[in-house]
């Protein structure tokens, strides 16, 4: 329980840094902090494989790309941080509504037939892989196509500049 509260605290701090800091480099580092806490949370929730993948994919690749682009463009800290006041208020209202809705939906009773005990290999690489390569074979193949499209798209976009 203590572990969860530590995770939650740092995740929220990181998220607030992302949203509120003027300097995009700090925003990216706040994002790393939050993503790392999410990885720890995955480990706490019986998803050790996802926790490691989270660190590898998000912290190791995605945020590094963000930082790389920020550095490449030598972005300065923003002078005007935010949208005008009404928009900010609208954003706050939207966020509060969404958050409230999610909290309410989270407290609704789950569907019946919930197992009282998890199987011993829940979250292990084997069980994830079995599920992925049998029940979700088609989406898996489609994702690989999607990745290919993304690679080609990124290369085309980057090439056109010269």
């Amino acid at each position, binding site marked *: 329980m203590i572990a969860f509260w530590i995770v939650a605290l740092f995740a929220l701090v990181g998220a607030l840094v992302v949203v509120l800091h003027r300097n995009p*480099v700090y925003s990216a*580092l706040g994002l*790393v902090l939050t993503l790392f806490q999410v990885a720890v949370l995955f480990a706490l929730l019986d998803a*050790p*494989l996802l926790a*490691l*993948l989270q*660190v*590898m994919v998000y*912290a*190791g*690749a995605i945020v*590094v*790309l963000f*930082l*790389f682009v920020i*550095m*490449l463009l030598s972005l300065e800290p923003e002078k005007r941080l935010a949208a005008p006041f009404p928009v900010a208020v609208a954003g706050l209202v939207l966020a509060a509504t969404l958050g409230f809705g999610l909290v309410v939906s989270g407290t609704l009773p789950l569907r019946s037939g919930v197992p009282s005990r998890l199987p011993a290999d829940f979250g*292990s*690489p084997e069980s994830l892989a079995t599920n992925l390569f049998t029940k979700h074979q088609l989406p898996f193949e489609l994702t690989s196509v999607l990745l290919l499209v993304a690679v080609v798209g990124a290369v085309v976009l980057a090439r056109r500049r010269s």
Partner: protein
Amino acid sequence: MEVFFSLAKIVVAFVIILQLTLLLLWVERKGSALIQDRVGANRANLFGGLLPFNLGIVNTWMADPLKLFHKEDIVPTEADHFLHWLAPFVAIVPLFVTFAVIPFGDVLRVGGYTIDLVAAPIPASVLFVLAMASLAVYGVVIGGWASNSRYSFLGGVRGTAQMISYELALSLSIVSVVLTFGTFDLQEIARAQGQLIWGVIPAWGVFYQPVALILLFIAGMAESKRAPFDLPEAESEIVAGFFTEYSGSKLSVFMMADFVEIGIVAALVTTLFFGGWQVPWLGREGFQFPGGFAIALPSLVVTLLQFVAFLVKLFVFCWLQILVRWSLPRMRYDHLMAFGWKRLLPLGLVNVGLTAVLVLLFDGWTVK
């Protein structure tokens, strides 16, 4: 009692890596001197030079770190002070943590307890190593950006591009080893290498995955940013790259991170390809030579032998990296990128594909 053993294992792993870095510092200075036909570090001496022989090792073992930690810590005025302070820690913590999952022995049997000799026995330790290796890039990025200096910045950008490029080859080589042994657990991989091929040759990973060994070694050296891949800190072009603006203890932490990375690459090569702590023909009960000849040994002696074997292998591969560093000139930047993406990556992909086919055809392929 369990807690005590866990703590003891953590201390052992930590001491190995700390002492290894200091030893490597000396080996690198003396080794480079050997290669360049110099004498090398020979000034510091115990007992005021009263000893008849030179104790150059003391120089770097104690004097160098002490000297560095006493130097003034300079932070450039225009630097981002918080991130400048943070970068060395970000650089070194993931590397230290990586060593926790490297097995340094089979099991230790003491008074009814059977202790698995790996500091943090987690099931997917191979992925853990990859995850931590992917975090190592942050020290370079943050250090290079926070210094607010052109040279640091260039070094940071170069380091980022290089490290994320070579991480692919590194991952692919490890994937093919995982496919071969069918487990994500480094300790299990090390144990599987205790078998014998045709009852004679130890079933080490190098005999199954020679291509992956070459890939891992090259990509690992590129990850540790040392010659011939030291573009991020190329002293003849960009002063010292991402740690140009660092001094004193922070600089020493960055340099230490370099040596820890060498240690990790050596530990990975040892564990994945050269049997880890395995001594050829040494089982838990003693030596079992192919001819049927056997020597029974007590459990403690077996464990000690394995530990020593691990350290010796670790050191051999560290030395090999130092040898490469002082033998080869630096690559040109476009060659570096082309080599990573157009040579190592396709080679790694082909190797993974071939391994998968072999595993399917021969049902596991390795000795069971």
